[in-house]
């Protein structure tokens, strides 16, 4: 990674939880809005349920930051004639997600060193 690019990505950190989740979902493959809502709901055990206004505000922002890109509208497999716009994560987006994961990992390691993890779960 070039140094200035790394710096630009690090400027975005920390990512909000939902931003991070969106990047994670898209890292698994291109996805449309409804697919993201369902996937995020599933990954957070129903705790995060996104609505259109909020979701697309975030997608527009992520797109503006160059982390994701919107594709043309295309047919949704298995849904008849429904056409939806798909989104794809960019290289920059993957880098941001990975930088965020590393950041969180270091935080988690510190917590583990203090034996904080497991305490509440017991």
């Amino acid at each position, binding site marked *: 990674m070039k140094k200035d690019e790394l710096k*630009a990505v690090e*400027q975005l950190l920390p990512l*909000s939880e939902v931003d991070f989740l969106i990047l994670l979902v898209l890292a698994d493959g291109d996805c449309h*809005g*409804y697919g993201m*809502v369902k996937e995020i709901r599933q990954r957070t055990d129903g705790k995060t349920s996104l*609505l*259109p*206004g*909020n*979701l*697309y*505000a975030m*997608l*527009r*922002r992520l797109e*503006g*930051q*160059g982390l994701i890109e919107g594709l043309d509208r295309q047919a949704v497999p298995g849904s008849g*004639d*429904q056409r*939806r*716009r798909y989104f794809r994560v960019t290289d920059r987006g993957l880098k941001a997600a990975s930088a965020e994961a590393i950041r969180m990992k270091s935080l988690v390691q510190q917590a583990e060193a203090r034996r904080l993890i497991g305490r509440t779960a017991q």
Partner: protein
Amino acid sequence: MKRRPSPLIRIYGRMIGLYPADVRTASGQDMTDLFEDLLQESQGKNRLERIFFVVQAFADLLSGCWKARRKQSWQGLPTASDSPPFDKIGSHLMLGHDLRFTVRQLRRSPGFALVTILSLAVGIGATSAIFSAINSIVLRPPQGVQDPQRLVSVFTGTPGERLYGLNSLPDFEEFSRIPALQSAAAFTLDLLDLSREGSRKTLLAESVSGSYFQVLGMRPALGRGFLADETKVGDAHRVTLISHSLWVGEFAQDPSVLGRTVLINEQPFVIVGVAAPGFVSRVLSLKADLWVPLGIPGMVSEEVQPKDFSNRRSRQFNVIARLAPEASLEQAQAQLKVMAERLRSTHPAEWQDESGEPLQLTVADTDNGMPPKARKAAAAVLTTLMVPVGLVLLIACSNVANMLLARATRRHREMALRLALGAGRARLVSQLLMESFLLAVAGGSLGIGIAHYASQQLNRLQLYGIPFPVDIALDWRVLAFVLAASLAGGAFFGLIPALRASRPDLVPALKREYSEGSVRLRRFSLRNFLVVVQVAGSFAMLAGSMLFLRSQQAAGQVDMGFDPENIVTARLNLLLDQSERTAEAKLQQLTALRQRLQQRPEIESVSLAGSLPLSLVQRSAEVRAEGFQPDPQESREVGFNVVTPGYFDLMRISIAAGRTLQAGDTLSSTPVALVNRPLANRFWPTENPIGKTLQFGDSRQTLQVVGVVRDHKLRFLNEEQPPHVWIPLAQHPDQPFLMVLARTHGAEGPALALLSQEVEELMGRPPLLAPAPLRDMIDISLLPNRLASSFLGVTGALALFLALVGLHGVVAYTVSLRTREMGIRMAVGAAKSSVIGLVIRQALSLTGVGFLIGAPLAMAFGALASHLLYGISPFDPLTFGAVALALSTAAALASFVPAMRAASVDPVQTLRFE
């Protein structure tokens, strides 16, 4: 073909237009798509969750729009890659700031917020519940029906009141062939018994002719509609379609329900389909649960009997039709006019009414399944219901306005300070309005909960074992109504206080003089006016509910002319008798039943009758008397009952003249009849009726009058006695239905089970509908009265509660403004009691003015509803006195606490403060 999106999606799409153009282009369509996907997903959830989702989605849309617009107004700041997250932009901008400020303010006075929100929730909840009933019956387009605007109803009748009459089946066969109608179907409404696995339910059902479902374009959710060869009138198969809600409720959505056999009126029927969700009857949008083919042999209702299928005079059938693709309503009417002329010339006898007036055919638009007259009537009833709940809402709003006024006055110093520091007046007004809108929205949301609960209760309501016939549901129309009611309420109770509060006299306010001295304690202030409105409204409603309660009480004491206590009844359906026995054989079986019951120790006497007095079903026939010519407008129809000889003894009805019916009145002896005094007076005003003859029914059978029955109530408690005839069962054995009446020696409970058991043993099947005490059946005639009094009682209590809260608030507020005056009064020697008296007098004088307005309102209301009142005048002085007394006491109590506070003012403190 692309489906037309639902109204919600269209509204959502329109509202996307509020977003800035660039956002709209970038993701407007995507957002609408996502909303549609989520909305579809929510179909699987329950109704409350769905409503919740829709509210959330719209709130999300609006807040997103707000953020996007705000972001635009901040353009020029760095954006794109390094733009800050949305929620950190411009947090000091007006609206968001106002919102947070308001929430903080309200949290500082939780009592005020709670009372306000509760008042509004009660008002909005009650109004929305009634509105959802109106919506379900009058406004909501029929569900599960294709192109409802192309559906029409056809009626046979005479011009004027009786234009929208029902049709006969032979006529229907002919007029349904006119080219302007693509297809047509006839149907009737019935109550049928559904039994399975030992449980029995009485359900509203429709008997429909062959093409009924095709005419409506109803696609069953499961299975199919009826096939052509299943619906031949007179030879129809025993197949049935069940409603979607019955399928969900009774069959747990089991798809294997198709092909299963259920017992309907004790006969086996095969379920062939499940109707589309929300599909209801075309008559008044009643909630039908079963559909069976019309004309199954032996399977007919009380009203419609086999001979009615071929009888042109028997006009018992609703007709619904679909206009041909190019045809208009006017064309259909023109063609029906020609058809009616032809029918009149080919069947002159059948095509005139009793008074000789020619009949005609009328076609009417049945967008909502109701002829225009019925729709108007239903709308009138529901609007009448809307008046009291609207009044509750008005009282709630006045209440809130009053509290806001008081609050605004208390905050005048803050306002003055802010104005002096340069805040714009518009700014202050918008902030104060924000407060009232926030309260309105909170009250409205809670109100939706109340409305949801109330409508669920209404849906669960059973009237004498029969489910409440209207499916009341909250849908987007109700939500829109609540939103409009909340916002209008917010503007109504927020604007005046806001305008007022934002215009204080700066100098005295800043010098802290306003609240102590310069405030004008006008006698006719806006605040007082609002309290008067509340008192007047609650007075009118309480008086109304009292009138109905007293009328119910009076009805309980009325002499019915017979003794309904300790009598149990059961209904026998004799049409189900498949055996080809003669009338005599059937009669023997009934006699055997009577004798067996008679031998039981629990039972004193047993009798059979065609119908029960004061019940909903009454039979009538044309009766003629020699030498008597009725007026042309007067109907020859007279009520009649078929009874066994012991009937009058059992009911404790005495015979005024002549003899009663005897065991010797049989098919081989002279046909006889008993009459009542009104009939005798009508036919033979000056002569002795005993020995006179009557011609009875279509066959004009001659009956000899042998006795006169003492007057007793027949149809309604508050009726003028109508003419009536009683004929012996032994001479008229061919009855479709009969009631068994048994007078018991003691409690009715054991006799009910006994009746069921004996009937089943002897007749081979249980009685139709569960046996019940006669008292319960009679109570049905009091139902409108009872519903009205409980409805008004509840709304009246709500109104009273709200009015008292308002009164208390105003008195407390006035007292707080007059603290100084009270202090001075007491400093110069006024006793505590005189200060308390002063405050309470003020409250009572407001209440008094409220009475002056409320009493005429209540009287007008009572006069309108006088036909529902029994044995009591709409101007009953006792009712009005009692309500006035109760309200005054309540008002005095409500003002007592602030009065005590006024009296406990320390004069020294007050004067020192000066």
